[in-house]
């Protein structure tokens, strides 16, 4: 692994939540690395802290201690606003329930992250059309999420995740709400992202079929990362 570039590195990361007066540890001393261009599947029982771990390295939650380096940026040192800018440029998100904005069309949902860039309307349009092509939804671009199937919605979400060309994609149970066929399509797309676009993917999943596509599978048990 050492000769390849490191995409994500976590060292000594701890995270706990406050539940009432109680302090509930969720992640304890997490240390791991993901090489650039790697597809990693994170598995483990429900409540083991998978989503929390994913949120930490994607910069949408904050660690109590430890250092998280993504690319060559120590994201634990960024403040909220810097973190937002960093996310916009470096991370693409794929959620279990797609999280599309219901009042926006597929096209507009994909366009959304581009609004934070300095691109012109025309440039944005070109990018969105290209992304629609990648997820084979050009003919559905004017549909609202409610007019699309779950699999199609997730493809829109993938297009939205890659629209700013981030190095890293994080996916939290991307197939968790889909039937077998749609799930298969989504996994093929994810595979395509890694092999043809050189993305690094960290994916949380319960689905062994989905995990098969990954290069590396890691298990999280009660907040502790198992050796693979």
């Amino acid at each position, binding site marked *: 692994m050492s000769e390849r570039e490191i995409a994500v590195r976590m060292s000594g990361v701890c995270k706990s939540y406050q539940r009432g007066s109680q302090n509930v540890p969720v992640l304890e001393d997490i240390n791991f690395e993901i090489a650039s261009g790697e597809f990693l599947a994170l598995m483990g029982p429900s409540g083991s802290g998978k989503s*929390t771990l994913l*949120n930490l390295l*994607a910069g*949408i*939650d904050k660690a109590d201690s430890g250092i998280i380096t993504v690319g060559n940026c120590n994201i634990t040192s960024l403040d909220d*606003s810097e973190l*937002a*800018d960093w*996310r*916009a*440029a470096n991370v693409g*998100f794929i*959620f*279990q*329930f797609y*999280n599309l*904005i*219901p*009042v*926006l069309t597929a096209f*507009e949902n994909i*366009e*959304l*992250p581009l*609004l*934070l860039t300095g691109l012109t309307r025309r440039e944005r349009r070109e990018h969105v059309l290209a992304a629609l092509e990648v997820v084979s939804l050009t003919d559905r671009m004017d549909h609202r999420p409610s007019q699309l199937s779950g699999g199609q919605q997730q493809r829109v979400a993938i297009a*939205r995740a890659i629209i700013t060309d981030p190095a890293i994609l994080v996916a*939290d149970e991307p197939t968790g709400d889909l039937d077998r066929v749609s799930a298969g399509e989504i996994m093929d797309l994810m595979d395509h992202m890694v092999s043809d676009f050189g993305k690094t993917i960290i994916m949380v999943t319960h689905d062994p079929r989905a995990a098969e596509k990954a290069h590396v599978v890691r298990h999280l048990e009660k907040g502790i990362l198992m050796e693979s």
Partner: protein
Amino acid sequence: MFMLKLIFRNVFRHKLRSTLTVVGVAVAILAFGLLRTLVGLWYLGVESSSSTRLVTRNAISLVFSLPLSYKERIRQVPGVTGIGAMNWFGGVYISEKNFFPNFAIEAEPFFDLYPEFRLTDEEKKSFLRDRQGAIVGRKLAKKYGWKVGDRVVLKGTIFPGQWEFTVRGIYKGAQRSTDETQFFFSWDYLNETMRRTVPRRADQIGIYVVGVANPERAAEISENIDILFKNSLAETMTETEKAFQLSFVAMTEAIMVAIQIVSYVVIVIIMVVAANTMAMTARERISEYATMKSLGFKWLHIATVIAGESLFIALLGGAVGVGLTFPFSGIIERELSQFFPVFRVELLTTFMQIMAAVVVGTVAAIFPVWRGSTITIADGLRRIG
């Protein structure tokens, strides 16, 4: 642009909810506008009373009259330019329902004392010639279809009998705020009739209307008048017409203050309702806001989307409310002209209505904006998954 599109689509997401909120705000803004107009007109009426006129009345109470002999003595007071005896007549036209103010006033000084009543020289002359002549306001004449030369009979209440008058003039107000619903007739007609029928009630004057050249000297002149009659049988109390009207309507002023308070209460109520609706809406969309944040949008973007929606709804309701205020005030002016001679919406009222809508939209947005912009992404996303 995109944000506007998003705000606009969010507004129409729950059509029924948004429509009801818009209607609620519209009705509140309409009520606010009408109530404020009412209050404003009332104060305007008090304000538009002449500051070059004083009113001298019996110091004990309006119920007691003043002797006729005071007239010449008051006229001698330096600064006084004219004086006329006046009595509240309280006559009824056909039935009690048809209320309008009617007074007996001395004919000769009348036109000089009330320059805001616009009459032709012809009308003035024929009024002075006819003992039983009457001068009526334009609105009043219009309401009952009176024309110059028409006979009008009032039933006396304070002064018994059927009183017959001939309309000799119809006055137009010099300003929009001039009351055009009053009825005046010659005080001599009243006094002579009393002399014949109830002699002990003759030569009794309700009030003296006193003209002064310089309003700034009103206080001093008033004092000088009252000093004249100190320790006499009928001491006087002189004040500006405005002060006189105010004391007359002290009760009404309390009601006006109450109406003013109600007008604000209406706004507070709709504010609470709108705030509740917006909070409900924002709660439903919390995961969308979290998603936008995860994509790199910042709290200001989220605040814009939420506050934009709230303001859009409030301003739409406000616009409808302001728009409705004009036809409604027109209806009030037409149907209730005896109470509101002019029911005109002031520019300031319209401005306050718009401000009220802005305040409603802003206040309704405070809690949702705070929630939407402070919730952590991890928490927000958890709401659905």
